[in-house]
């Protein structure tokens, strides 16, 4: 088990290191000059522009040698300094992101967990059941092939605009201020529902199909046939099949995280939901590179953390990893 976690942690550490390096490297490698673009947008007079340019170059340490810049970047990172947002000048990037993260968590965690759980149960239930299989399978494939944002757009249009049941933008009404009261919570939930539902539905399709296929393979496995030959009840065989089929689904969750995060970003943009995805849109619109880089780092950290949690869960559900043997995900 120590070996399993050691390996995983080494990979995460290396990934983080590389991600930070990419974050530092890309702006310096790419053509174009962010500071110049930023100043061009401000529309200053020529001499003021030159002075501002030297000021910013020094302020961001761009006149130092490369290796110094790189070390400074790491140093600033460990002090929680991700720079200053251009879009919301002079708010620090970290603060802008910290305000957005709760919305992401509120949207992603329930959507992922609920869709995973119900999708698995439903897929297992539908497997080898002719009538259900013929309806669930096509619906599942359609759902999982739907681009996240398109389902969001459809729901927003149908339920939000045409029927008028749900608000389609923001996390709460403009008239309210965030506080812990019944009216606010009700309002926030009302705004939360559509983005949640579109994320949930797309993911649900994927999990249901994955589980259905896994169960079929497990029911074809030798131990299932053996149990059948012994005269074990169908229910028991299915229970064992489910337990074995759930393992690849846990691994699948880890593999799918990147796609899910991408989907959530796009969904937030559809609903102007003030999470990281919405920040990214604003950062791109305003050429706010510091904010964009900060968002990138936060997504990486979030995904790595989630991966680590899944690793722990994997140890809990797969006894082989605990016994020191290598499980499937190791």
């Amino acid at each position, binding site marked *: 088990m120590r070996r399993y976690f050691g390996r995983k942690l080494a*990979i*995460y550490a*290396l*990934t983080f290191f*590389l*991600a930070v390096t*990419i*974050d530092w490297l*890309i702006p310096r490698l*790419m*053509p*174009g000059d962010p500071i110049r673009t930023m100043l061009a947008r401000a529309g200053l007079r020529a001499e003021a522009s030159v002075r501002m340019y030297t000021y910013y170059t020094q302020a961001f340490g761009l006149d130092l040698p490369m290796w110094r810049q790189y070390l400074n970047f790491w140093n600033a990172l460990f002090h929680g300094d991700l720079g200053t947002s251009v879009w919301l000048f002079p708010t620090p990037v970290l603060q802008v992101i910290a305000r957005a993260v709760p919305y992401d968590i509120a949207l992603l965690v329930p959507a992922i967990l609920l869709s995973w759980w119900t999708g698995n149960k439903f897929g297992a239930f539908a497997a080898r059941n002719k009538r259900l299989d013929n309806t669930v399978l*096509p619906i599942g*494939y359609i759902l*999982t*092939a*739907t*681009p996240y*944002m*398109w*389902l969001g*757009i*459809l729901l927003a*249009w149908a339920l*939000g*605009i045409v029927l008028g049941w749900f608000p389609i933008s923001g996390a709460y009404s403009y008239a309210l201020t965030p506080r812990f009261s019944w009216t606010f919570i009700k309002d926030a939930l009302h705004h939360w529902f559509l983005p949640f539902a579109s994320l949930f539905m797309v993911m649900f399709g994927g999990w249901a199909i*994955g589980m259905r*296929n*896994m169960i*079929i*393979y497990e029911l074809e496995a030798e131990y299932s046939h053996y149990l059948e030959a012994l005269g074990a009840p169908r229910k028991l065989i299915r229970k064992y099949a489910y337990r074995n089929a759930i393992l*690849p*689904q846990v*691994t*699948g969750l*880890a*593999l799918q*995280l*990147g*796609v899910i*995060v*991408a*989907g959530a*970003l*796009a969904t937030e*943009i*559809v609903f102007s939901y003030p999470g990281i*995805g919405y920040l*990214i*849109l604003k950062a*791109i619109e305003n050429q706010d*590179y510091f904010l*964009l880089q900060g*968002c*990138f780092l936060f*997504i*990486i950290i979030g*995904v*790595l953390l989630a*991966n680590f949690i899944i690793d722990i869960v994997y140890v809990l559900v797969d006894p082989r990893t605990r016994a020191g043997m290598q499980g499937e995900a190791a």
Partner: protein
Amino acid sequence: MTTLTKKADSVATRTLKKNEMLYFALRNMKLRIGLGIVLFFALLAIVGPLLTDYRPLAYVGPPAQPPSSEYWFGTTTFGQDVFTQFVHGLGATFFVGIVGGGLGTFLGLLVGFVAGYRGGIVDEVLNMLTNIVLVVPTLAVLLILAAYLEVRSVLSESLFIGMFAWPWAARAIRAQTFSLRSRDFVDLARLSGMRPLKIIFREIAPNMMSYLFMTFILQFGGAILTAATLDFIGLGPTNAISLGLMMNNAVLWSALHLGMWWWFIPPGLAIMAIVGALYVMNVGLDEVFNPKLREM
């Protein structure tokens, strides 16, 4: 993809005759429906641009018109023809699928074969690399890459997508190669002095052809979805139109509030249909290649 890994072994051991496979392929409903839908859209992407007199980004008519005989899919807020944008966007979608999915499959093959066949330290290093690219959320990297590019084309987008899409393919192909490597016929080839590259392409690859084909289909669909997301966020091609970009424009210019459904429904519907058809095709192929899965 987990299902694919599971049947790794059965693919290798099977020796089905070609025409028998074709017989089952033609009989398979899922394969026929899936292929039909994909071909329909591919045809539309090729023929469509010939059917319109307009250019995708030109302002050609009155703004915000619903579909009519003159403007088949209506017009945008700026008076651009939605049908023209749609067929050109379809072309871009297929391009991303073929180039991005192709590159992803190719890199996956390369890494998977080398890691699986060589084993040892090469395998360790490649496996580490695979695991790292696997945990990094693709879109986040693409975001950073695309944001700093002033001019973006469909080609650069496809290449970027392909460069980050290969890990799971590599992982699965590595596992397969691993199981094939120690088979008698591979040993025999090695003993007879065949070069490793030749062994990989002559002895190992043909035994997992069906599997490689299915990997490509999944990579194809994945690349299309990734491109759509990237375009929708506003980092799509700067000099062309794509289906994701159409949705991005529609949302940006409040097509939802104005009730201009003809602007945002076709692009998403097409992506869903194409990717869904690819998935269904894949299930059909799975049944063709794996007799166990045929009608129970």
